[in-house]
């Protein structure tokens, strides 16, 4: 059922960085790119106090929330122990250097 939408070029996202995708409804989505050029997408809302995860520091397959430093797994949206919480994730793929998001 998923509906792949072209978002941007891979190079539009800095390595170990992110971009924000604004939706009309449903809130922002953060798209991350790590050092291995893997791309992930999470709801841009930290499970702790709704901090914008897109603004965090990306390392390995994790992002550290800018507000209070929770670490969130990029693959599954789960907070890294001992913190508990999760935020929804979205399917993304990269084809020919272009990033697609399933929404």
């Amino acid at each position, binding site marked *: 059922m998923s509906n792949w939408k072209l978002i941007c070029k891979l190079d539009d996202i800095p390595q170990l960085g992110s*971009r924000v995708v604004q939706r009309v409804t449903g809130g922002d989505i953060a798209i991350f790119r790590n050092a291995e050029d893997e791309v992930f997408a999470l709801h841009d809302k930290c499970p702790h106090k709704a901090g914008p995860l897109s603004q965090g520091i990306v390392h*390995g397959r994790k992002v*550290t929330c800018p507000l209070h430093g929770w*670490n969130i797994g990029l693959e599954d949206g789960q907070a890294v122990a001992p913190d508990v919480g999760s935020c929804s994730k979205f399917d993304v793929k990269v084809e020919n250097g272009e990033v697609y998001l399933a929404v």
Partner: protein
Amino acid sequence: MSNPPVKPRLVLIGNGMAGVRTVEELLKIKPDHYDITIFGAEPHPNYNRILLSPVLAGEMTIQEIVLNELDWYKENNIKLHTGKQIKTIDRVKRKVIAEDGTEEDYDRLLIATGSTPFMLPIPGNDLPGVIGYRDIKDTDEMIEAARLHKHAVVIGGGLLGLEAANGLKLRGMDVTVVHLGPWLLERQLDEIAGKMLQKSLEDKGLKFLLETQTEALIQGESGRVAAIRFKGGMQIPADLVVMAAGIRPNYSLAESSGIYCNRGIVVNDTMQTYDPKVYAVGECVSHRGIAYGLVAPLFEQAKVAANHLAGYGIGRYTGSVTSTKLKVTGIDLFSAGEYMGGKDTEEIVLNDPHGGVYKKLVIKDNKLVGGVMYGDTADGPWYFQLLKDKRDIHDIRDSLIFGQSLVGDVGHAGKSKAAEMADNAEVCGCNGVTKGAIVQAIKAKGLFTLDEVKKHTKAASSCGSCAGLVEQILASTIGGAYTPAALDTKPMCACTDHSHKVVREAIVAKNLTSKEAVFAEMQWKTPNGCDKCRPAVNYYLISSHPHAAKDDPQSRFINERAHANIQKDGTYSVVPRMWGGLTTPDELRAIADAAEKYKVPTVKVTGGQRIDLLGVKKEDLPAMWADLNAAGMVSGHAYGKSIRTVKTCVGAEHCRFGTQKSMTMGIKLEKMLFDMYSPHKVKLAVSGCPRNCAEAGIKDVGVIGVDSGYELYIGGNGGIKTEVAQFLCKVTSDEEVMEYSGAFLQLYREEGWYLERTCHYMERVGLDYIKGKILEDEEGRKAYYFRLLDSLKDAKDPWATSREEQPIKQFIPIKLEA
């Protein structure tokens, strides 16, 4: 032929604190490397042995002190044999055999069999009712005896004996402590302090027989011990006798298998025994001739052993200084290091028998090497940190004995008297964590380090100013089990075993100019670090190689990446610089226009003498900056680990008291330091006379005008714990103010560790050291000053460059039409 094993097999003998800690460390750095099997003679999973005392005292339950639940072993695929004692190690066939015949093969063996209580070789020492104090079984037996019997005798007036006696008393027994020495804890305390301790314990109802030697234990009609007889013939009733006269490393198993032992299993600095396939850690070990009996050094051993078992081969264990604390509620006793003193040592003693306070500090070559505190132990962890850091104390020697808060030194990092705080008192104001919650987490989750407490409670994890307090709570909750890491050897974060010091030195010495080079050269354990080490490494790179190393925006915290402060709702605040706190009608007009144009909800005057526009959308930032730039304004760096503001008073330009032109001086300093990044934020102030309206006394660099020039103060801080800046020197001209303060700040930039404020840097190195570099060495000072000016020679406004050089994509959201 059977298939070769897929993974090498690791067998651990001894399911106790040191052995299991080693396995935990191993799983952390190399999970799935071994097939792991653990044998434990006790029928329990690993528990926190040091908390047996609170269990006996009725303050905790056995359930609460378990460190690793059975599920933990399952989750980590560890085969656990509880209640099975290993009888034989066959080193030729590489297998271990338990009492009941269970066998396991090993490729690597880890021995952590702990120690056993020393049972006095006297008649009757094997009677029922005569026990040591070591494990859950002993504790249960004592609790049971307290239910059924009346008279308890504890042999040995050391820490363990006193904790046992206290617990038994609280459980209603009539308790006598028999001690051979002339006073209690005669190795830690001198006579006066020992007597003070004895008095407080007597007030709790304990009885003491000092200088008394036990001759025999006498059996009663039931077959159980009934009395104890001393040399000289005196005899008292005893239904329970607890031997706490020392421990013996438990190495008989290793010795019988032919592994070299000498009052312990002899290991080298990698925790390897004479058999290279066999490692040993814990109380059963003799390392450089020392067998430790406290957990903190054992945990250090565990870390090293794990690293070598993982095959990384990094790290050596070189021995530990230890500290102990008596865990009897209501009595404060702390000792650390070489508290006995000895050759070439001096002692400073404070003795107040009426106030119930005794302190002794042992000093050697101007360094603290040991100490004992009784009655008031609040400063124990601070002394211990000084001791571990081998800090030169001669400049604070006069007031050292009075503790940290009276030392005319700086930078207490928020330390106060943790033990006296109520449980509902808030420790971490940032995250609203109370003392009770921290104590609860330490006990329930078995936490031993500041990092663990940070992770589990969030205390000290934000601004960090309560870290000192949290360390004190750790120390008072788990006693000697807590050792603060020496600052210059503490690993930066979980990504590396290297300290800030080592990493920075390598960056300079090996001329490393990128984070990739650092991670490769220093064998980082993670591919690209984490939010702790990456910003630190980035700072060390750009500060060590100002023009050669390229700044990495993705290694910076969002505020420095976006050149604005993130707010709790994800908007940003914008603070244009007002040099020295001065502005003009044109600037104010431009700010007002920007506030209207970008619908800024809040406009505020900051404590840094400028205007903050709060609640700006990230996507509006570049345009807003362009407008402000057009009016001649630049970034105020209100967001950076960098120069923030130079606050000034009105000064001689207008003020009737002014002696110096503080506004002009402030502007010169702020222009000199523009765009300076530093280990942490840096704030300055200039006042025109000693009335000091600019509050220069709480700034990193404070300048106060006097008739004949300026006084310079350094290392002040207005934070949670106010630190008064220390007088550095007096100078006569504006140029000298710039040279001296610039040189000091460059010294701090080169030597301060990331996130260390000037006051903490100063506490670490000492004011005398800084004076030596800045005042006594003119050439050195000029060189620091030159390097500062050189690194800042092409400083640019980040608001302007974010349009020109850097991609501004980060500010632009991608809009999706669905």
